[in-house]
């Protein structure tokens, strides 16, 4: 019998028990729909996270002081002697692949504008900082070199800080007080949203690093030109590893670390961060995928069950088909095609429901989803595979029947 004729026979058989066929399909429908929803949401989420991490700058190296070690006791991150403007200058001068570099000092301070106040993170930065972080201004301008040299009382506000102080009104040109020092608002940063690790990147205020030292956090600093962090933008991703090694050599030299002594500073890149994040993400996807796969298997068991019932019910039909000349493989393919048709039909319905749900989630729930043709193909192929796998045993049972026993079956 040719495949087309087998297919027609299978569809006719499924139509006879339409409700039963539908109920048998339900498991596969739910399985495929959940595969589509789960995978599209999970991969949508991981794409969104990756995009945000990339927005932090993948060509970024962050240098911070490491652990102070004394007599075997390690005091923890940031306890070693701080970085300095000197370090920044040397790195900028002697590492050729550095595109821009910024030193930062940090503190927390109350901001006051008229009657409202807001305490936020205040960063002392240089004019390269915005370029290094790839942060955009929504309004206003960056610091000028003159302002930095002079220690001008100018401030750039993050979106959250600006909103807390001025509401929806523009902050540009307004005066605010930071630790009772009056500052002019010269710029406002574009909204960046949450960082990859969940903190609000918009809750921030930037002032020239010279001003921060002189007017705000000077008393807290033990070394006059220290830096909390140095952020370095490297010209390209390929140069990252070399640049990192060069910076490490320079810093070990400047900090007079003996050969074999551990680094008391850390040079991290965002790629590290992306790797960790992606690993977590893929474990999560794997778990969700396994759940979806289990539901497909459960659906497959439903198909197998109904096919076994169908084979038993149609024993006499099988006997008759054999009596008029059906070979074992004709019977096998008839029931196998029936099971696969059941699964693929269920898969198509599940696909429609699943992608509908995924699209609905992205439209009304603002979930980032990624519905790829590959995912659709995989979902349908796995439904067909479930049909072959779980349909084979009942079909084989039908094909192995003895014609006369099948004909006489009551």
């Amino acid at each position, binding site marked *: *019998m040719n495949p087309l004729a087998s297919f027609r026979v299978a569809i*006719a058989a499924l139509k006879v028990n339409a409700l039963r066929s539908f109920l048998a399909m339900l498991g596969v429908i739910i399985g495929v729909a959940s595969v589509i929803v789960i995978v599209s949401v999970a991969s949508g989420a991981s794409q969104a996270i990756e995009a945000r991490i990339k927005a932090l700058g993948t060509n970024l190296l962050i240098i911070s002081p490491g652990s102070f070690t004394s007599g075997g006791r390690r005091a923890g991150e940031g306890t070693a002697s701080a970085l300095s403007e000197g370090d920044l200058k040397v790195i900028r001068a002697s590492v050729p692949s550095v595109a821009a570099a910024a030193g930062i000092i940090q503190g927390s301070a109350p901001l006051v504008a008229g009657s409202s106040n807001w305490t936020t993170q205040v960063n002392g930065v240089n004019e390269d900082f915005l370029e290094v972080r790839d942060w955009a201004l929504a309004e206003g301008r960056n610091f000028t070199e003159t302002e930095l040299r002079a220690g001008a009382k100018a401030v750039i506000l993050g979106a959250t800080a600006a909103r807390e102080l001025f509401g929806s009104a523009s902050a540009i040109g307004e005066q605010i007080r930071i630790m009772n020092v009056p500052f002019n608002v010269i710029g406002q940063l574009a909204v960046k949203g949450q960082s990859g690790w969940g903190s609000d990147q918009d809750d921030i205020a930037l002032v020239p690093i010279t001003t921060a030292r002189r007017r705000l956090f000077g008393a807290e600093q033990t070394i006059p030109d220290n830096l909390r962090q140095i952020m370095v933008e490297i010209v390209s991703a390929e140069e990252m590893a070399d640049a990192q090694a060069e910076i490490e050599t320079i810093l070990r030299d400047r900090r007079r670390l003996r050969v074999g002594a551990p680094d008391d500073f850390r040079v991290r890149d965002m790629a590290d961060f992306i790797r960790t994040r992606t690993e977590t993400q893929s474990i999560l996807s794997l778990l969700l995928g396994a759940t979806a796969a289990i539901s497909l298997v459960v659906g497959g068991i439903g198909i197998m069950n109904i096919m076994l019932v169908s084979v038993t019910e149609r024993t006499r039909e099988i006997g008759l088909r054999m009596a008029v*000349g059906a*070979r074992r493989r004709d019977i096998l393919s008839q029931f196998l095609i029936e099971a696969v048709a059941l699964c693929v039909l269920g898969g198509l319905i599940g696909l429609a429901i699943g992608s509908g749900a995924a699209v609905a989630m992205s439209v009304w729930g603002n979930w980032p989803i990624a519905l790829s043709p590959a995912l659709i193909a995989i979902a349908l192929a796995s439904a067909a595979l479930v049909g072959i796998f779980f349909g084979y045993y009942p079909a084989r049972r039908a094909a192995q029947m003895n014609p006369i026993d099948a004909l006489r079956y009551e």
Partner: protein
Amino acid sequence: MARKRRAAISEQAKAAPQIVARNLVKTYRLGGSVIGALQGISVEIARGEYLAVTGASGSGKSTFMNLIGALDTPTSGSLKVEGRELGKLGSDRLALYRNEKVGFVFQTFNLLARTSALDNVALPLLYSPRGHRNARDKARTCLERVGLADRASHQPSELSGGQQQRVAIARALANDPHILLADEATGALDSHTTEEIIGLFEELNATGITVIIVTHEPDIARRARRRLTFRDGQIVEDAA
């Protein structure tokens, strides 16, 4: 030349018996005990015979018929049909044999439900290795032969018992079989319809098809040109 030789071969084939059983044995295991359904029968049946097989139930007559139709395989002994030793054929070859050489008519008709008479008749053509490009035309011709051309689109549930059995006969004829096997084909029919069906068998026999009917009704058996009577797995009478 070729035609002459073919004629010679077919002349020879006509001379040789179509079905030859030698010491044919079929036993079943039922529970722990072995039941001897056929206990070593030997018989020859010629092409174009009209044969009735009779006997009490359990005498082995249906078993004999199932072996000829290759629905079942012999336990021992030899059964040759048109030179083929059925016991030695694999399952695909047996399927082909059932498809091309024999047509079955059963007591319970065994038509596919919710399937039109025409599609029921076309069923053997679906499994024919010769293809089925004209399956529906062929099936229609067969329905005409049994006088049911006007019922082609009816489903079995819309047909009377006699009509259903005629559809089953048309199905048996679809692949132009050499042997027609009818197992209690009139057992479920009234006497008038029985007469119609038997008449049809006789017509078909007249066209050269070997007709073998299993029956326990003496009236029907008497109409055949040869009668085999079975008792306890043996042929006790072979009368013309």
